[in-house]
């Protein structure tokens, strides 16, 4: 298997450097999507547990749509739809202009929207686990609504929601593979290019799978460390 080692080496002969750049894109995309999805998911969860029926309904429509659509379809709709939409706006000002939507941004938005609709469910069930007395306690010591949320509820909420969110992170890592379909050079696309050029498809796709596995394993170690730290913080108080 001298051959395979050459193919997997770093440099002009091998494809390791190309695949490494793909790994970088995948990780960057997942990391860029995470805060977006968490923030949106939190606000959707807040909307869904509000006393106001209109706000609840608006939140439920959001989750229903984006949990029901295939991720790939969401990605295409965002990618082509945004392209057409922006194009029409730009045409309005200068008729000859041509815009191309960055596939990284499209991927970030599509994955973020999907992530947030799942995350909102995780946050919602975490909200249900926090007793009403916590809010009342906050108000009775004179905290405002926002302060109660930030200082009293949120720290507990995160601890309860963490297992669900770490699950979503692993799903997000896997979902990033879809962006290869809109031309972003992630792990899978780079592996595909290498496979086509070298005709060693099994080798490169197996390497791609292994990289995803390694990312998942590294993530679970990271998540475990975060969980331990959060748990320690909780008991120290």
């Amino acid at each position, binding site marked *: 298997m001298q051959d395979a080692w050459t193919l997997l080496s770093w440099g002009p002969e091998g494809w390791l450097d190309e695949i490494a750049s793909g790994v970088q894109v995948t990780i960057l995309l997942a990391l860029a999507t995470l805060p977006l999805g968490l923030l949106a998911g939190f606000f959707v969860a807040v909307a869904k547990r509000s006393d106001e029926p209109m*706000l609840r309904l608006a939140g439920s429509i959001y989750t229903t749509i984006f949990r029901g659509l295939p991720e790939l379809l969401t990605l295409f709709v965002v990618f082509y739809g945004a392209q057409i939409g922006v194009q029409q706006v730009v045409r309005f000002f200068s008729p000859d202009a041509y815009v191309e939507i960055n596939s990284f941004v499209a991927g970030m938005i599509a994955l973020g929207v999907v992530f947030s609709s799942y995350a909102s469910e995780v946050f919602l069930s975490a909200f249900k686990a926090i007793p009403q007395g916590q809010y009342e306690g906050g108000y009775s010591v004179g905290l405002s609504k926002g302060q109660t949320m930030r200082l009293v509820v949120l720290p507990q909420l995160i601890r309860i929601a963490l297992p669900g969110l770490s699950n979503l992170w692993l799903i997000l890592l896997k979902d990033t593979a879809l962006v290869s379909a809109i031309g972003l050079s992630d792990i899978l696309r780079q592996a595909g290019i290498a496979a086509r050029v070298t005709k060693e498809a099994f080798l490169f796709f197996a390497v791609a799978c292994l990289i995803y596995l390694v990312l998942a394993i590294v993530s679970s170690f990271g998540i475990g460390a975060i969980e331990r730290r959060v748990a320690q913080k909780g008991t120290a108080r």
Partner: protein
Amino acid sequence: MSTAIDAARVEKPPAPPRPWTGERIAGAVLLGLWILCGIGLVVYLAAAWNPELFDTYLPYYLSGLGVTLTLVGVSIVLGALLSVPVAWMRLSRNPIVAGIAYGYVYFFRGTPLLAQTFLIYYGLGSFRPELQALGLWTFFREAWYCAIFAFTLNTAAYQAEILRGAIASVPRGQWEAGSALGLSKLQTLWKIVLPQALVVALRPYGNEIILMIKGSAIVAIITVYDLMGETRRAYSRTFDFQTYIWAAVIYLAIVELLRNVVDWIERRITVHLKR
């Protein structure tokens, strides 16, 4: 009696008008946005209504829908069959057997379905001579069979975990009670444990089917013309964005229908657990 009710009605003050709090304004604005989106969508689809396009592509969409449902149905059933031995191995006391099953489940749950599909469809092409010698090449040459194969292996891993979790959720005392009554292990499993486990497993199974329907869209990338594949083909021929909108509507309808069916079944089979 009637005077008391009248008095209560008279004395009860009228409900105060609901104030326009920030929440209510936000709710109205967001809901208004959704309604606008909905109206915009209907107006767009009505404006873009093109009977010719519809006549041309409706049969394609229907056949695509059939392909999607067949693919998901076949792989869910085959995966369910395969998941039984995997779950059994996972629960085995032999560390080697349990380790093999754990590795299988970990691999298929830890890597993207798209990568697995590529590995099988493109990757197994590297072993063409060997597969031809075994007479399996006609199977792995077709994108359709490769998709079914990949999806079956994938869903078997997920279903094995669901099954294992559900069986583990039944208390040990149930097994012991079964053997105390003189039932064999298989009888206990079949008559006592499984009926309780399936109540627990119903929702995860429903979610798995929904995930498979959504996940099956990726076979469009390996040139299987499922609903997504037909949509991409229609879009690449017409550059009409409504092709994607229709696909979205169909997918959403299937998923919502399934979700409601699962909810209904769950309500039916958990009647005895409600107080």
